[in-house]
């Protein structure tokens, strides 16, 4: 293969790659927009039970975070393992810390209240 042909080929390959990555960003922004607009709309215009609304907001937020990780930060399951390991491990610790804190503080809040007050 001549030098020039090789160059040509790598250029077209690069162009393909670029289109692929651009589509990834475009998908990302599209999904993110959708996942943002819906909960905002629900809060603004829809009357529904508070708990349902909270669950929907939470679910949309989680999905949107995944979308950002996937399409903007290019995290996937084909990565070198250490990076994914790092993120999953951090998530586990984050959940332990936050869930533990809320569990403890909620228990304390109920048990520290002045008897006879709400």
């Amino acid at each position, binding site marked *: 293969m001549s030098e020039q042909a090789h160059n040509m080929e790598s250029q077209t390959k690069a162009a393909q790659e670029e289109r692929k990555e651009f589509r990834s960003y475009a998908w990302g922004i599209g999904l993110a927009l959708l996942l943002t607009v819906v909960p905002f709309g629900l809060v603004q215009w829809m009357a529904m039970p508070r708990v349902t609304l909270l669950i929907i907001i939470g679910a949309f937020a989680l999905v949107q975070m995944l979308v950002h990780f996937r399409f903007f930060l290019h995290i996937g399951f084909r990565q070198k393992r250490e990076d994914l390991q790092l993120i999953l491990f951090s998530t586990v610790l984050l959940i332990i810390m936050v869930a533990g804190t809320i569990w403890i503080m909620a228990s304390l809040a109920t*048990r*520290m*209240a*002045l*008897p*006879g*007050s709400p």
Partner: protein
Amino acid sequence: MRLAALCCGVLLLAACAGDTHLTFLDPQGPIAHQQRWHFYWVLGVMAVLVAGPIFLLLPFFVWRYRYGNKKPRYTPKWEYSTLLEIMSWSGPIVIVIVLAVFVWRDTHKLDPYKPIASDQAPLQVQVIGYDWKWLFIYPDQGIAGVGTLALPVGRPVFLHMTSATVMQSFFIPALGSQIYAMGGMVSQLNLEASKPGKSLGENTMYNGNGFHQQKFTAVAMLPADFKAWVRKVRATGLPLNAQNLKVLAQRSTRADLIAALPGARSMAGNVYFTSASKSLFPAVVKATMDGTPTLPESAFEHRHTATQSGDAADAATGKPR
């Protein structure tokens, strides 16, 4: 090590010999009694199963396989044995599982918030932590005191506590658990004394220069003596009014407080109050929570209503409900 443990044991026995009961190893009530049992039990399990094997094997290995001893086998590359690995893991796992079962059961059984089963209604006491003294309010009797927590023997005591200043920890070792008292919050503690006697009471959470003087005596007395004590306090106590409470709330030790309240000098190192209203404790909690320095007027009821409610409660004292 065994020797050290023995020495400690002897010293503890000596410690029990004094006038004031200092420790849960010399329990004065059912809670501390159970805690003593847990302590010995866990200690025993670990001494036998954990420390025992290690303290036997370690000196033996170290001596037998010392560099100067050429006789025993030397296997510089030996680094794995399935049997030993299984033993190393399974031993601690079994011990922890056994202990975990007991921890789960006992933690629920001895939750400080859990009322003590009894055929008598618990005596209500409200505790307010000040720097550096505890104020004990007996809302049903309409009295309050600093320096002595009087308890009738055989009747559960239900304490509500808060702090008017920083975080403190209320603790009578010979009777039972300690628990934090915090500003704007109310924590609870259930105790019971099973025999008459004096026990050490204290704050264990550092709160400034007078911290080490923040002690009191928990005096367990027979029900009749308790009634007499209540009457005596009512007869001799100072009124718990806004002015006296202001003096009480200053950062001062009990000795300073007595010096500042001339009427308290005849109370043998204690300060007793009458006309302690039921609304005082919630008022202090609320005021601390709101950051308001002075209590509302409603926290101090008129003397005769307090006495009336006190009498009513007095009549109920000791009677099964």
